[in-house]
């Protein structure tokens, strides 16, 4: 019992170490982080202005509702980008710096290592997503009197389990392909969102894409968050989106760990952990 407690304590300290390292990196690259955030805001604006553009072109739409719908899509896109970037690029970055061998030879359980990266990614992603949403909503003067932000945060939190699980699968890509692995992570992010109704209802997609949408956690995340923010849906009303997310998360996390484990074995078999090779 005491041994198990000591082991758990050691793993939690290790998990804190992963978070600590990422905090140091954000602090050391803070100007780059700010520059990247400005780019994210600009990118979000290019999407969100579409609603006003349609109205200016003579279309008849509820501009505020469409703007909010697009903003939620853009914020989730950016959030997912951070989750995948932290999980995928941390491995790639470590490999580039040469620290990956020291991390992988430390007595830290790999699931704990990956959860530590996931915890930081979610924390950092939520902070950025909140800033992004507030800034752009303020720029457009969006009035969201009935928004239920607690429900929205709950849906995002539950969806994050699945996102981290999928992020673990993409994190292994730089181990398998040191040169192109990170880019493959971005492709996974794009595919996930295009089938999930990021800026449009899933109904407009072709049948085969709609089939993929049913297994994408982003579909339920977007639906649930839109219901909560646009229509003030409470926890009971977004439950239809939460339970599929729980099921997908329960599959995605073990699957992500297994994919990473196999990728790590491949890297150790072929000598791909070291910096040059």
């Amino acid at each position, binding site marked *: 019992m005491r041994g198990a407690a000591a082991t758990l304590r050691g793993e939690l300290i290790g998990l804190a170490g992963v978070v600590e390292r990422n905090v140091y990196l954000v602090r050391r690259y803070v100007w780059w982080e700010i520059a990247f955030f400005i780019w994210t805001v600009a990118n979000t604006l290019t999407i969100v202005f579409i609603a006003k553009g349609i109205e200016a072109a003579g279309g008849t739409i509820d501009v505020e509702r469409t703007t909010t719908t697009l903003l939620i899509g853009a914020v989730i896109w950016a959030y997912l980008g951070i989750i995948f970037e932290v999980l995928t690029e941390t491995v790639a970055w470590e490999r580039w*710096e040469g620290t990956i*061998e*020291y991390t992988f030879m430390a007595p830290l359980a790999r699931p704990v290592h990956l959860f530590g990266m996931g915890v930081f990614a979610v924390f950092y992603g939520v902070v950025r997503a909140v800033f992004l949403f507030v800034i752009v909503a303020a720029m457009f003067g969006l009035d969201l009197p009935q928004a239920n932000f607690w429900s929205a945060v709950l849906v995002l939190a539950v969806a994050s389990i699945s996102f981290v699980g999928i992020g673990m699968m993409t994190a292994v890509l730089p181990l398998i392909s040191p040169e192109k692995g990170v880019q493959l992570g971005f492709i996974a992010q794009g595919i996930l969102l295009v089938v999930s109704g990021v800026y449009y209802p899933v109904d407009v997609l072709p049948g085969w894409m709609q089939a993929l949408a049913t297994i994408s956690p982003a579909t339920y995340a977007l639906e649930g968050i839109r219901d909560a923010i646009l229509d003030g849906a409470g926890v009971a009303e977004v439950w239809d989106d939460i339970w599929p997310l729980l099921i997908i998360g329960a599959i995605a996390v073990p699957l992500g760990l297994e994919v990473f484990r196999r990728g790590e074995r491949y890297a150790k078999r072929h000598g791909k952990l070291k910096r040059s090779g």
Partner: protein
Amino acid sequence: MSAVEVTNLRKEFLRREGRFRRTRVPALRGVSFTIERGECVAVLGANGSGKSTLVRVLATLLLHDGGSARVFGHDVFADPRAVRRLVNRVSVEASFFKKMSSNENLSYAARFYGLTPSDTSARIPQILERVGFPVERRGEAMEALSRGMQQKVALARALLTAPVLLLLDEPTTGLDPRSKLEVQQFIAEVRSVHDATILLCTHDLDEAEVLADRIGILDDGRLIALGTADELKARYGAETLEEAFFAATGRALGDVSEEEGS
């Protein structure tokens, strides 16, 4: 129980030849040796002889293709986490997050070994001081430090976790003479004070002779000799270790083996 017990260890890498063809290149060809607790064994070898592969296998960073390796009785491949608790490593490249300071790099690395901030806040400056690193510079980014300084921080990182087996893979290569001497003195001190077992891979003959109890010669993935410096000289009828190495391998240490390993 031996500190390290390696038996008939084999490791191969796939090398791409042309678009579709791949050939298997042996990096370790049936290597066997033991290291007793508290002993320092140096492995000499030309570039590509398999030294780094041997260190990586013992550090649980590579999977083998045959044979066995045990560290203090723990199977390196079946029980890697038990091995990781006992081992640390210093390699030819210091390998840090370069924008982060030495203090930050050491702090997060120590957490991976279960050391809390209260454990490390006092210990990091102490260890940095012991390796001859100017403690007042511990907040500076690694990229602002000289290579010799970075290597001292790498030694501090390894020592912070109190390893019982220290794997040193050309720890002084590329250092200026003064830094090299300081690092060598520190390695000797670690061994005497901490009772650490050391496997030192190097192509510095003087370093091997000064620091090691026994010296092995690794050539083309084969450990062709292992003994004290005097035994090796006697075996090959040589006056110096350099002559013994040349007699054993037919090449100088600066040469590259035909079958370059990882």
